[in-house]
């Protein structure tokens, strides 16, 4: 598929920090693209340059092969992680206001149906729940029927139900052929929604590909988790990774590992077997130290 966005050697330098330091990638038309990274890795700076809100120090972002022009904002939609709206305006009034700012507008009833706003359309936007509010912000990002939709940590702070509900909306939007560029701290979200991800750290790209391809590239094993007390019975016969109260066994042959656990007399009552996840890969690539 052709690239709708091309990021070429993009850099943003501040007085003492190289927030983004020469990042390059493409976003395919109609795909869902994930930009991942720990706090301070440079992903927000990168996405803001892609949104046309921040001027790069070097490099460029191309939209359909051309530099971002004066009409770029009319063709993209942005949902920020935190956005305040004007007070005392209803959901309908907020949609009408943002709609009026664009030359091309999606019909209000389509937006309402797509983002499931019917129940609270005439409610004060300041009195919405977290999930309702995110749906409204998504609808606002879609008022101009954008070709590219940017979602910056769209489900942060939502409960599991609201998050999954939001995923369904993103899938619906993608099914309509829209290109989506998103950032998230939830690896499960990236795995479920994204066709391709880029992991950035210290302003540089450290991994790129589809979530499944990246996992297949880095791992050929599964993870067995069991309580540390049971692991003590193994007496060093199997390599273990200490995780505090639990230990992990990384093995390409789960059956063999279980047989050895049974032979050592370990109880399997609390055993958990799971495949490798994007979170494993993320932590392995970016390290476990706390970022601020």
């Amino acid at each position: 598929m052709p690239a709708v966005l091309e990021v070429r050697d993009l850099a943003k330098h501040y007085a003492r920090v190289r927030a983004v330091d020469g990042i390059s990638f493409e976003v395919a038309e109609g795909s869902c693209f994930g930009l991942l990274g720990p706090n301070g890795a440079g992903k927000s700076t990168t996405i803001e340059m892609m949104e046309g809100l921040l001027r790069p120090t070097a490099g460029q972002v191309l939209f359909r092969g051309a530099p971002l022009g004066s009409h770029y904002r009319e063709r993209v939609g942005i949902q920020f992680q935190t956005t305040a709206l004007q007070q005392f305006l209803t959901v309908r009034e907020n949609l009408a206001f943002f709609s009026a700012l664009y030359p091309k507008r999606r019909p209000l009833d389509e937006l309402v149906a797509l983002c499931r706003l019917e129940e609270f359309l005439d409610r004060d936007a300041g009195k919405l729940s977290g999930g309702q509010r995110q749906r409204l912000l998504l609808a606002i990002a879609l008022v101009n029927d954008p070709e590219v939709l940017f979602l910056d940590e769209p489900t942060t702070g939502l409960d599991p139900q609201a998050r999954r509900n939001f995923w369904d909306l993103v899938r619906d939007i993608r099914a309509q052929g829209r290109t989506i560029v998103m950032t998230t701290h939830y690896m499960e979200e990236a795995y479920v929604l994204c066709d391709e991800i880029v992991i950035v750290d210290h302003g540089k790209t450290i991994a790129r590909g589809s979530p499944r391809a990246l996992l297949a590239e880095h791992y050929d094993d599964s993870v067995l988790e069991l309580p540390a007390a049971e692991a003590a019975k193994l007496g060093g016969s199997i390599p273990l990774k200490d995780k505090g109260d639990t230990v992990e066994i990384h093995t390409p042959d789960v059956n063999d590992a279980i047989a050895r656990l049974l032979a050592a007399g370990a109880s399997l009552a609390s055993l958990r077997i799971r495949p490798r996840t994007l979170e494993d890969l993320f932590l392995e690539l970016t390290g476990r130290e706390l970022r601020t």
Partner: protein
Amino acid sequence: MSGFWRRLRAATWARSLEFLRDRSSLGWNLVFPVLLVFGLAYVFSGPGQPMFKVAVLAPPQAALDATLHPFLATPQVQFYREGAHEEALHKVQLQRIDMLLDFTAAAPRYWVNERSPKGKLLEQLLRGAGPPLLAREQTSGAEVRYVDWVAPGVLGMNMMFSCLFGIGYVIVRYRKSGYLKRLNATPLRAFEFLLSQLLSRLLLILAVNIAVFAACRWLLHLRMEGSYATLLLLTALGAFSMIAMGLVVSARIASEELAGGILNVLSTPMMVICGVFFSMDGAPRALRIAADFLPLTHLLSGARAIMLDGAGIAQIGYHLAALAAMSAVYLSLGAALFKWRS
């Protein structure tokens, strides 16, 4: 409708709805100035105002003290230098001052208003002060009640606070909360946004102040000698310039505390030196020059000229021109300095 007008109308309407639905703020904007005018009318309508005010026309080199005339050493009387005879005499006629002394003529003279009790009292003091005797001239004119004089000041002051804080705080709040960042992601241009905020505030301030003025005029029988249309024009221009001043303050700041401090730095001197509660006649020259650079001075001087003296557009042309110039400067500066994000 072109994109500019569509965006401007949408942003102006959204901001106006936000203001109108904030009932507590709207109520306060309506009630506070009426209460203040009533309060001041009550406080200053009774006896016990010790100060007499006397204008003096004298050669520039002459000091305003007993060497010019022993009467000028009288305590509890404020003597101040006036430049123009006509202007000073007009103030005597309106009883805004109690007496006019003229030492520029070959034979020194004084003017009192025959209908002013304070003028008559001062006349007794003048006669008792000793030679040289001054020739008596008489004029007349109904007294301008203090409430007639102070009402434009109070309404103007309220308008100033509403303009400065109303626009300044709101934009700073928008910036702090990330709302401006959200708007920046749309095709709305900075100038369109600023103009929408300005127009919304201007229309609402005019509506509120027309209502408050009508209430004060009806309840206090405020004097109104001039044209309502001229007063509306002056008020609109005055409000425009002060809102534009608020735009300059809020152009980049993201802290409400800092914005509040700067707005106080601007509003407090305006309240003191622009003649809100007391006439600046007789104030030090430097203060009067400083006041001339503040929009509230021109709004109040113009409004009083219209309401008390029946001045027309030509007579307040200087004030209108000053306000227009200040509006242009502040708006250009605000637009040039404006940033969506801190």
